[in-house]
């Protein structure tokens, strides 16, 4: 009897979660637990803030916007479940997620359920090469960034280049693409290409090894935590070499970890920071975020999630519907130079963001990020 009761309880729990849609629901799929939880938490902060602002102005299509967030744990299996769960909750679109492999595990689920998906941190090229109608992303692809990286490296007059990644999909992709672009360039030799183990603390072993190869510049494609530690530790080793990072190193904590004296002169590529954008939207967002949470956003990807959210709401307003086909058509064809929080946004037929997004930044003596001309 007891077992039967439990069973009934479990069943009622399962059925209880199936709501019917009233307001415009937008899903958020992000890593709320696990090693990327900091990104997921900030993605949620950004979307909560934006939804609040839109709702204060009357919402969209006469109703309030509701953000439904689910945890993908930064792991494909959990993400597939999160996607199934979101797709049963009457959402018109979903924002996210961070990792490419994680996004990939959910792409088919959303596409078959006819839900618009706008990824914010999944830069792997192949995600948009499958001809999925409802897939978009606000982050540029790895090859976009690699192109800018290769140009910058050549502009800096580097003769011996060391490329270091961390074996994550993103960092490896960027490293590989950059290497392909620079292989065979005259007067430029890639003297080192290897991966470090992320989330460790002591990188002196790899720095010692790097130093042996005497590069002019080290291009590290991984994340800010490791980059900050390496800057600090190379300074301790009295090694003066240029360092450059990809957009995952764009985080104020980098300077805090390294110390501003060690971080000085560090280059990185990134979509423009909200502070460097002329648009009113970006300024207002930055002010609103700082006011609500006490600090500016730490990572660029949550801001890109905010852009995904904003283009979706914009498309709903323009098409006056939550119909995924109409929204997808609008985003593919009619959206041109939408004033985003990270620059102008348009999408091509694959759902990739078009236009030059990347800028080069350099850290100055005070540890500030200065946009390079």
């Amino acid at each position, binding site marked *: 009897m007891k077992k039967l009761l439990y069973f009934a309880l479990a069943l009622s729990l399962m059925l209880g979660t199936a709501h019917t849609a009233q307001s415009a629901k937008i899903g958020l799929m992000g890593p709320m637990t696990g090693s990327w939880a900091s990104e997921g*938490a900030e993605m949620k902060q950004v979307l909560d803030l934006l939804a609040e602002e839109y709702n204060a102005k009357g919402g969209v299509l006469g109703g309030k916007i509701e953000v439904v967030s689910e945890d993908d744990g930064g792991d494909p299996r959990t993400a597939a479940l999160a996607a199934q769960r979101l797709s049963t909750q009457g959402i018109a679109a979903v924002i996210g997620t961070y990792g490419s492999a994680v996004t990939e595990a959910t792409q088919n689920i959303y596409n078959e359920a006819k839900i618009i998906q706008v990824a914010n941190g999944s830069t792997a090229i192949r995600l948009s090469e499958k001809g999925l109608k409802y897939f978009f992303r606000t982050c540029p692809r790895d090859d976009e960034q690699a192109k800018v990286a290769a140009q910058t490296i050549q502009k800096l007059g580097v003769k011996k280049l060391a490329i270091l990644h961390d074996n994550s999909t993103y960092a490896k992709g960027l490293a590989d693409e950059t290497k392909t672009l620079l292989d065979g360039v005259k007067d430029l030799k890639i003297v080192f290409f290897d991966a470090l*183990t992320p*989330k460790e603390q002591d990188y002196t*072993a790899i720095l010692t090894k790097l130093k042996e190869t005497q590069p002019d510049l080290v291009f590290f494609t991984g994340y800010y935590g490791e980059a900050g530690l390496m800057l600090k530790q190379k300074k301790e080793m009295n090694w003066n070499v240029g360092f450059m990072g990809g957009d995952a190193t764009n985080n104020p*904590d980098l300077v805090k970890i390294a110390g501003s004296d060690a971080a000085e002169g560090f280059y990185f590529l990134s979509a423009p920071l909200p502070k460097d954008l002329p648009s009113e939207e970006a300024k207002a967002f930055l002010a609103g975020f700082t006011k609500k949470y006490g600090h500016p956003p730490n990572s660029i990807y949550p801001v890109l999630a905010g852009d995904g959210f904003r283009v979706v709401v914009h498309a709903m307003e323009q098409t006056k519907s939550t119909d995924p086909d109409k929204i997808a058509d609008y985003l593919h064809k009619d959206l041109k130079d939408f004033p985003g929080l990270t620059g102008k946004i348009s999408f091509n037929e694959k759902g990739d963001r078009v236009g030059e997004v990347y800028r080069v930044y350099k850290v100055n003596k005070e540890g500030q990020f200065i946009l390079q001309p």
Partner: protein
Amino acid sequence: MEQFFQQLTNGLAVGSIYALIALGYTMVYGVLKLINFAHSDLFTLGAYLGLTLLTSMSLTDRLGPVWGVLILAVMVMGFVALAGALLDRVAYRPLRESPRLSAVVSALGASIFLQNTVMLIYGARLLVYPSNILPKTVLHLFGLDIPLVRILVLCVSLIMMTGLYLFIQKTRIGTAIRAAAIDQGAARLMGIDVNRVILLVFMLGPSLGGAAGLMVGLYYGQVNFTMGWGYGLKAFTAAILGGIGNIPGAMVGGILLGVIEAMGAAYLSFAWKDAIAFLVLILILIVRPTGLLGERVAEKV
């Protein structure tokens, strides 16, 4: 050759931290035959507590760097020791008489719990220690550039490990711990309060782990809630490498593992560094099934 010696010093610094954490695994294992998977999260807790105490009480500003850090270390070790005792009381003591693997699952659960507690309290972002506490001097010894702090890390670890070793070998309480490790029943018959020994072990081990966490925080300057996993796995590997349950074994294992890693990274491949370390471990265990300094016991019968 210069690279070799430079890598050796790199390995020694990392290894000494592994060794310090490994002591916590090995002591608990020695007495309870339990792998305390939550030990790595106590290490993380130590790193975070250190940061909280440091910034909230501004110890180093008031007392100067030396006394400030010392008092801080004592406080962190005290708190983590309490956490260790609490962990034992809640998660392990109810399982003393049950199958050993049940306690392992409880330990894994406790580890998940602790890790997520830290995440919820401090947030998922990595946090940064103030960087103005430790001296930034770099020494030039035998043509190598060695930061003074690395030498300090090594020395402090060695002092603590020697202290623990002497405590276990030379004092009455230490003798009681050794007795309980060999045969709990017999120790009880000899009038040793085994429960108190276990409590003590669960305070000593974690306090060393907490101290290691504090050192990592002070030296490397960044802490995140998942850092325990990497260090914990390496420290556990080190404890096994040296022969688990054996205190000098944990020290030798830790330092050796640090050096193996640095050398593997330098001369083979960096991306395969951890795989190389595990491969060496497996090879050593095939030759010496109970670790380097482990007692020679046949398959448990």
